[in-house]
């Protein structure tokens, strides 16, 4: 599973972003997106394109965590969102690992709703053949819309939120400024390692 995490200001200015990979099931924490040569800007593009969904969803209930709100099937990218009361948006793009083999490719292009189920089935069938696939099948990565994943992302968001609050309380941080704090970055990385 590869992740791309962004914090957007209330006026859609990116304040912070970071890419990382899963550390669960023997992952090394390095992001491996499916299309590495375009990932850098495509991830941002996909995340920004989900903002309409965020704005629609944000008034539906009082929760800050909006769960999985958008899917971009061509890159099989899933977006989860978290709102802070001041209007900053935390957006997490997650992309399940690129399962090797012809079966996986066939399933990879499917519709957004079906992907969660089909990829877990594929993962299960691979488990006999490849140990790497088995690792991913048992992790949250295999099923981006499962309750376990939602819960892990929620924990991640909550921890980042806690650190975000501390960061914006820094007297030298001005509202709407890019977050350049190395401490914050390392804490986000740590949260990613812990929950994702």
């Amino acid at each position, binding site marked *: 599973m590869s992740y791309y995490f962004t914090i957007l200001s209330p006026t859609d200015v990116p304040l912070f972003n970071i890419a990382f990979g899963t550390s669960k099931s023997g992952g090394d924490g390095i992001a491996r997106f499916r299309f590495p040569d375009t990932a850098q800007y495509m991830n941002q593009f996909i995340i920004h394109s989900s903002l309409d969904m965020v704005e629609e969803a944000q008034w539906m209930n009082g929760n800050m965590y909006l769960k999985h709100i958008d899917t971009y099937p061509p890159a099989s990218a899933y977006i989860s969102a978290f709102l802070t009361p001041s209007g900053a948006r935390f957006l997490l793009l997650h992309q399940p690992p690129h399962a090797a083999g012809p079966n996986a490719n066939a399933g990879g292009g499917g519709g957004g709703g079906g992907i969660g189920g089909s990829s877990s089935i594929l993962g299960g069938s691979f488990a006999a053949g490849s140990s790497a696939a088995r690792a991913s099948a048992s992790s949250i990565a295999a099923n981006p819309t499962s309750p376990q994943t939602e819960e892990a992302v929620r924990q991640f968001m909550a921890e980042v939120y806690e650190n975000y609050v*501390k*960061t914006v*309380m*820094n*007297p*030298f941080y001005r509202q709407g400024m890019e977050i350049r704090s*190395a401490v914050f970055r390392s804490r986000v990385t740590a949260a990613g390692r812990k929950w994702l």
Partner: protein
Amino acid sequence: MSSTTKASRIGEELWKTRVDKVNAELVTLTYGTIVAQLCQDYDGNYQEVNKQLEKMGYNIGMRLIEDFLAKSNIGRCANFRETADMISKVGFRIFLNIAPTVTNWTSDNNQFSLVFDENPLADFVELPDDGRAQDELWFSNILCGVLRGALEMVQMQIEAHFVSDVLRGDDATEMRVSLVRYIEDEMPPEEE
């Protein structure tokens, strides 16, 4: 060490009974804003910011000693070592609810260090990453001025400065305090 434990008992007692509490974030954010504003006003001239903070502290200290003596009702210290214990265990306890460690005495008992395990003024703070603040700004420099002002009003001329700060990436926050002289009673306080 009996004077130290006595001092910490007095400090605890006063903190529990005589001190009005105020929200810590209010203090932290107010002080942080002052420092940030000074940095902006002096256009990143951190030496000048340090100096201004020290001066502000000096003016606070001169009044604060009155409040301190009224609250604590303690008499004159017998020596500078006792003074150090009073500063750390009573003074810092009742005004900031911390008790920095007194350590690194010189052999003539005229210089010591206060090592701050925690510093409520610097919560949440990260120094600006302009490459200079880390080397030049003493974020909590107001405390040096407070000590200088307060002790001057009780006939002690001291010099205080920070030698390390966790905000700069050091292992500890340490302030060096040295006694310059005891001021004779007739001397008017120097003007500032």
